[in-house]
């Protein structure tokens, strides 16, 4: 009868180990007192996230963020010290308390072990929202924004939720102003064409995507639009890109796939493309390009600089 018993022991052991497995949550923030909680009496508040109407009863002090974009937003509005843990992809700002939590493969138990009073996430994976709610945890889902207005809304929502409404509004105001200034710094009628590269097998984005319409704002024409009637992420062919001869090329695969202006120029047949000949190949930060947070302004500025330079050359 030894074998069944030892299996039982093994199970029990595994169970115990799993339960103790999650890291003991520790506050990694410095010892400074939290900023005076303005609007602590503004609670409870209700905001609308992707998961519908969410009511927060008390100002959250133990926020877990599973969305790198949400993390950036939270810190940008001054709510960083209310953030307990962020997922493994949240690498900005550097002081964010990164953990092993995954936003792609969320482990409900591990998240719950932090005893959060609010979980912010972007992608509904499995039953993430429902599972956390069944444990009594408040969840707020902020899916990928469709445009800049969507970004502003999310920042304001987070401001309301964390009791930093004032700072959130200020941030949004600054962003609007910066965007306006950037857009006006380029000539929208120049009609420059561009190719946006997602990876080294020529996947691109059309103007129907968030990042795509940012480019449209700057008056740029996307060569992938002709290819993406049904699919906002079409795969182009090298031949088409060469034939389309874009004035600018933006690389969003510098990290994942090691692409750079040099590797692009080395591709057979690419040396003759206008963008390559005129130094119009612009490497972008993979992370910034894949998020819709406050740094989207930086991205916009980078693109606008490239556009301005190209317009100057054309003049």
């Amino acid at each position, binding site marked *: 009868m030894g074998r069944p018993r030892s299996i039982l022991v093994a199970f029990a052991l595994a169970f115990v180990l799993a339960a103790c497995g999650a890291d003991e949550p520790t506050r990694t923030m410095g010892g400074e007192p939290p900023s005076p909680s303005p609007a602590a009496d503004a609670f409870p508040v209700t905001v609308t996230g992707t998961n519908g109407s969410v009511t927060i009863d008390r100002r959250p002090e133990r926020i877990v963020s599973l969305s790198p974009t949400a993390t950036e937003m939270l810190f940008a509005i001054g709510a960083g010290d209310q953030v307990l843990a962020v997922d493994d992809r949240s690498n900005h700002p550097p002081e964010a308390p990164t953990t092993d939590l995954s936003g792609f493969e969320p482990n409900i138990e591990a998240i719950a072990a932090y005893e959060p009073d609010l979980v912010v996430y972007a992608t509904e994976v499995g039953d993430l929202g429902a599972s956390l709610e069944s444990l009594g945890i408040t969840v707020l889902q902020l899916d990928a924004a469709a445009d800049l207005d969507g970004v502003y809304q999310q920042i304001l929502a987070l401001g309301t939720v964390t009791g930093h409404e004032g700072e959130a509004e200020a941030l949004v105001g600054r962003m609007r102003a910066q965007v306006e200034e950037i857009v006006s710094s380029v000539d929208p009628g120049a009609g420059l064409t561009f190719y946006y590269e997602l990876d080294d*097998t020529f996947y691109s984005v059309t103007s129907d995507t968030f990042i795509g319409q940012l480019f449209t704002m700057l008056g740029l024409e996307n060569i*992938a639009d002709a290819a993406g009637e*049904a*699919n906002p992420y079409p795969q*182009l062919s090298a*031949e088409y890109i060469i034939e389309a001869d874009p004035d600018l090329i933006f690389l969003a695969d510098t990290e994942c*796939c090691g692409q750079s202006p040099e590797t692009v120029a080395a591709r*057979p*047949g690419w040396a003759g493309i206008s963008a390559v000949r005129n130094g119009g190949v612009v490497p972008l930060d993979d992370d910034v390009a894949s998020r819709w947070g406050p740094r989207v302004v930086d991205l916009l500025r980078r693109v606008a600089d490239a556009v301005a330079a190209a317009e100057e050359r054309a003049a």
Partner: protein
Amino acid sequence: MNARARTRAIAIGVVVLVAATVAGLLVGPARIGAGDVFRWLLALGRTPEGMTEQEATILANLRLPRVLVGGLVGASLAASGAAYQAVFRNPLADPYLLGAAAGAGLGATIAVAYGPSGVVEVTVPIAAFAGALVGVGLAYGLGRSGIGGRTATGLVLAGVAVASFLTAVQTFLQQQRSETLRQVYTWILGRLGTTGWDDVRLALPSVALAAATLWAVRRLLDVIEVGDIEAQSLGLHVGRLRLAVVVAASLATAAAVAVAGLIGFVGIIVPHTVRLLVGASYRAVLPLSVLFGASFLILVDLLARTVVAPAEIPIGVITAFVGAPFFVAVLRRSGRTA
């Protein structure tokens, strides 16, 4: 089918291949006139009058290698499929039977997830090639031991076991590095979109060697159809033939997978179609599988880049669309005659 009819069929196969190659060179988003293409071909690579350097480069460095690789891959997969169907006496055997696909997928995943990121175009094909051979080697080694011995069934079962295991490892690694998922996924679907002369150089030696070997033993593939014991009584070294075929087919498959990802169904569609046309003797089926396999894939690639032009569909998707109903048809036929 007598020798004369066979020669005629092979001649037709060659003509079709040439036509497919020319069609492949003529089609593409860059509008290059047929006349220009022909003059370029005749000029043997130098830029003829009236053609821009750009156009010549597109032909020389994009379309031509793409068509060549398509042909090599198609020929490999079709010939390997036919040969495997012979030595395993199974109409549904395909080149990935003995774990070549799983091994290649694992190799590619390892290269993408853990290799240096800047040289993925170099590391992935090599890793996929090595992985495919490792997969087959494991299956063969496993299949030889045990009660099954070196029988056809034993090898197939070993192949299934190895493939499952390697796929599990691959899935696990992909989960560990989920940011690499999209890259590996696009590779798995099979594509010729990024082929260049490097791929031709990588694939050509293996494919040529393998195709030559399989072509040479086509006669013996007929003999093995009567079963291991009867084939032995006819003087055939069954184990040796099976090993030779597995080695040659795996080499060809590994090369194909390395440069083009996992393109499925070719190894089944082409040999069966050829059999429908010229009967079951491998003296005809093998050479024609090589020729029609090459043409088939070149034409499928043509579809892949014209159907949603200027976007591209992964080739594996198109062959799957064509392959699924094809499978049903084959199953019903063997069901009827079984």
